[in-house]
């Protein structure tokens, strides 16, 4: 509510005393930029006139089709990269997390390294990515994976450590040995920890991807980060802020709707949700 008030004041301030819009964009301008990126051309930012918010001047080459728009395609491309890279991250981080939990020497070797690397901003992997893969799709994936799998490995390891030994004994007693013990006892027992690990890993992955896309302008596939860079190159701050808002919204939606819901259901199952 208070945010609506701030936005309205911001908008009014501009309307009463226009400043140069390339210094700092105003709300309706951002809305229009985003809609334009979706191939919807509309003029909320124009002064109030008859027929507002339709544009006063019809564009010479009107853009058509939301699905073919830059923003929609960008979201799809970034989403695809995210799913692929995060998937690899889960497999890699998951298996290393299990190994670190199971074998102490492994943990002593990798644990501190992973904790250290986890603090490294993912964009720092860009030079390595370029020298390894060149200016290619794989380099972006590499940055994403390096940015997220340490967190997954560490949190999975810590989660597995908190499993009560009694579950393992009960599983053994009931004939769950070897891989069955892992699949039917340890994995489900680790679910709460795994879920918060994935949640954390996801936000790392999303941030890494946006950073990587922002830096890699060479790809033919334009993700959200690339669009952000385009906005910067064109000095179009409305686009820049608009894309940032989209990034935040996607990140939050995934965090709240996917992982938040998952966590809620798991903690209900396990009776961890407080309400007994």
């Amino acid at each position, binding site marked *: 509510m208070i945010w609506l008030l701030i936005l309205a004041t911001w908008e009014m301030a501009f309307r009463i005393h226009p400043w140069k819009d390339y210094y700092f964009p105003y709300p309706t301008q951002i809305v229009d930029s985003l809609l334009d990126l979706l191939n919807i051309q509309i003029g909320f930012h124009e002064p109030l006139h008859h027929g507002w918010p339709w544009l006063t001047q019809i564009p010479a080459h009107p853009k058509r089709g939301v699905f073919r728009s830059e923003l929609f395609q960008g979201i799809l491309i970034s989403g695809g990269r995210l799913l692929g890279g995060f998937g690899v991250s889960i497999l890699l981080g998951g298996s290393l997390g299990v190994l670190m939990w199971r074998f102490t020497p492994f943990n002593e070797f990798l644990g501190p390294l992973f904790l250290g690397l986890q603090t490294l901003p993912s964009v720092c992997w860009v030079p390595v990515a370029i020298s390894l893969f060149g200016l290619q799709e794989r380099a972006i994936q590499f940055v994403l994976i390096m940015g997220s799998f340490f967190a997954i490995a560490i949190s999975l390891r810590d989660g597995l450590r908190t499993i009560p030994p009694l579950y393992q004994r*009960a599983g*053994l*007693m009931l*004939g*769950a040995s070897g891989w069955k013990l892992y699949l039917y006892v340890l994995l489900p*027992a680790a679910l709460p920890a795994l879920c918060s690990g994935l949640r954390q890993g996801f936000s790392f992955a999303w941030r890494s991807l946006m950073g990587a896309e922002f830096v890699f302008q060479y790809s033919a596939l334009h993700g959200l980060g690339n669009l952000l860079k385009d906005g910067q190159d064109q000095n179009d701050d409305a686009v820049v802020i608009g894309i940032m808002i989209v990034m935040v919204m996607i990140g939050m939606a995934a965090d709240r709707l996917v992982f938040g819901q998952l966590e809620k259901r798991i903690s209900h199952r396990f009776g961890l949700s407080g309400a007994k």
Partner: protein
Amino acid sequence: MISDLASTTSGRGRLVLESIDKNFEGSTVPALRGVSLSTMAGEFVVVVGPSGCGKSTLLNIAAGMLRPDAGHASLDGKPITRPGPDRAMVFQEHGLFPWLSALANVEFGLKMAGVPRGERQDRAAAALKMVHLANSTGKLIHELSGGMRQRVAIARALVMDPAVLLMDEPFAALDAQTRTLLHEQLQELWIRTRKTILFVTHSVGEAVRLADRIVVLHAHPGRVRRQILVPLQHPRDFDSKQVTELVSLVRTEIEQEVNRVNAAMASKDSAGKNLAEDLWQPATPDDLAPHPGDLGDGI
């Protein structure tokens, strides 16, 4: 279902633990020294002793969770090397899986054994019915009370049709009323199935209520002090004179032993430990004699 269990049980469940030694790292006193204990098929044996006497260790050796340092353990002639569903265990802290419903928890062992879904659901439902939980099959573990959880744990163990049922202070964490209720139910269950049960507790009252035979264990090091046959018929009236008398008898005896050893240990310095150990004579066949004079008639 019930008759099935009863018929398959006959002749199974001869658990033999022979001169078991067990030391734990970092402990100067052995947890168990020369402990021998065996069960007959269909017998209800309760091991009683103070905390730290190694009774849980003994049970874990029978379960195959721990290996003894010396001596050997076997079930129906086969050596015990690792945990298995023929020696199903009920833990003090239930150890049920919170991510599964009550029914799925009971099904778990059957699933591991590769029993087809339909059959295992039927068997699990029947086992839950036996512990009077037919209406709670779909409940999650945290939705059940402490007593109900232990009943699910018992059903989970029974459904495997184990040769011997191992129970590690299963009712210690429950309130007195629930405990009495579960004693009644366990007794009824045992009468119906005639499972061999090895039950560990620190409560003499619990032991007298349930056992055919009580094995008294003492601590530092853990040793069998005495075995007492309980010549009362099942089902028992827990409030009956015989039960209460036997409880106080066994309790007094244990207290006397403890006091005697404590006194011996206090009166000696460093050599005291050895003397105290000498006081612990292994159980003799005489110990198995019931106490007819103390129990009156009706036995």
